C-alpha cells in the first residue's frame, strides 16, 4: 500500500505539471481568445441578428489558436492517460487484487468462524438437550430413590414402633411378674414367720418328742 502511494504521488505531480504546461500558451493566445470570447459573447447577440440577417456561417468558424489549444489539451490528456495507465494500472491492480484476496480471506475466515460458531452452537444445543435428559434422568432416579428411602424409613419406623411396643409389653410383663414374685416372696416370708411363731408358741415338750418319733418312724419306713 505504501508502495502504491509512493508511485501515485509523483504521477499526480507529473500530471499537474502537464496540465499546467499549456497555461502559458493559453495565456499568450488570450487576446485573440478574448477576441474570440468577445466574439463568442457577442455571437449569440449577433447570432440572432445573423440568423435574422443571414450571417450564421461567419460566426461559427474555429480559429487556429483554438485548434492549437484543443490539440494540446488532447495531447496532455493522452499523455496523462498513458502515464496513469503506465504507472498506476499495475499497482492499482495489484492493490485491488490484494484487497480482494484479503476481503475474500476475511470472508472465508468469517465464514469459517461462523460455521465453527454454528457448530459450537449446535453442540451446545445438543449438550443442553443431553443435560436436560441427564437432569431428568437424575431427577427420576432421585425420586425413585427417595420413594424407596421413604418406604424404608416408614418400614423402619413401623418396626421400631413394633419393637418399642413389644419391649414395653415385655417390660410391663416383667414388672408384673417381678411384682407378683415379690408379693409371693413377701407373703411366703410372712407366712413362714407367722407359722414359725405359732409353732413355737404351741409346741410342748411332748409334741417335740412326738415329732422326733414321727420323723424317725418315717426315716425307718423309707429305709
Amino acid at each position, binding site marked *: 500500500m505504501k508502495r502504491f502511494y509512493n508511485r501515485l504521488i509523483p504521477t499526480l505531480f507529473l500530471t499537474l505539471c502537464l496540465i499546467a504546461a499549456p497555461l502559458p500558451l493559453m495565456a499568450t493566445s488570450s487576446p485573440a481568445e478574448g477576441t474570440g470570447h468577445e466574439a463568442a459573447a457577442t455571437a449569440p447577440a449577433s447570432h440572432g441578428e445573423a440568423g435574422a440577417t443571414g450571417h450564421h456561417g461567419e460566426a461559427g468558424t474555429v480559429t487556429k489558436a483554438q485548434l492549437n489549444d484543443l490539440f494540446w489539451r488532447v495531447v496532455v490528456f493522452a499523455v496523462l492517460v498513458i502515464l496513469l495507465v503506465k504507472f498506476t494500472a499495475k499497482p492499482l491492480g495489484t492493490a485491488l487484487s490484494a484487497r480482494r484476496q484479503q476481503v475474500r480471506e476475511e470472508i472465508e475466515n468469517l465464514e469459517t468462524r461462523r460455521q465453527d460458531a454454528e457448530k459450537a452452537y449446535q453442540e451446545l444445543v445438543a449438550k443442553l438437550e443431553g443435560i436436560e435428559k441427564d437432569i431428568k434422568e437424575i431427577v427420576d432416579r432421585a425420586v425413585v430413590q427417595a420413594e424407596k428411602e421413604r418406604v424404608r424409613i416408614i418400614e423402619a419406623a413401623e418396626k421400631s414402633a413394633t419393637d418399642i411396643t413389644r419391649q414395653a409389653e415385655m417390660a410391663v410383663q416383667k414388672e408384673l411378674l417381678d411384682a407378683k414374685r415379690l408379693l409371693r416372696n413377701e407373703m411366703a416370708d410372712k*407366712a413362714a414367720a407367722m407359722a414359725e411363731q405359732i409353732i413355737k408358741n404351741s*409346741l410342748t415338750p411332748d409334741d417335740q418328742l412326738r415329732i422326733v418319733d414321727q*420323723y*424317725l418312724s418315717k426315716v425307718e419306713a423309707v*429305709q
Partner: protein
Amino acid sequence: MKQTILARRYAKALFMVGKEKGVFSQYNETLRTLKDVYQAVPDIAVALANPMYPLDLREKLMDGITASLQVDKPLGNFLRLVVQKKRAAIIPDIAEEFAALVDAENNVCQGHVVSAIALNDDTLKKVRETLAKLTGKDVQLTTSIDTSIIGGIIAKVGDLVLDGSIRTQIAGLKDSIKGRE
C-alpha cells in the same frame, strides 16, 4: 488349714503299730487328750511347731507332754518324730484321722444330734438305733440343743445328714410357695 492327707498317712502308720500291739484304743485316747490340750492351750502348738525355737527344746517339750500323759515308747517316739519332721501343727488332724481309723476298726461311727429340747434316753436310743440301721455301724452320739430349729432333730453321721427340724420344713414350705408360678 487341715492337712487331711498328710495326717491320714501319719495316723495310718501309728494305727498299724497300735493294732499290732493291740493298744490303738489307748493311742486314740492319748491323741484325743493331746488334741484337747492343743485346743485348750494354743501356745503349746506354737511352741512345738515354731521353727524359731531350737529343735532340742521342742523335743524336750514333747517329751515332757508324753511323760505327763504316760504314753508308751512307740507313741512317744511317734510324737517325737512328728516334732522332728516339723509336723507338730497337724497333731489334732492326726488325732481325728486316728479316731476315724479306730472307729472303722471297731465298726463304730460318730454321730451328732441337734434338737430344740433335751432328748430323753428313750428317744436318744431310738435315734441311735435308727442311725445304726442306716449306717450299719454302732453309732456313738453326741447331743446339742439349738432352739432355732424350733422342733424335731438334725442328726449327722459322717457324710449322712438327717434333717427333721421344723425350721427346715418351714423353709421348704416357703421355698415351694416362692418357687410356684
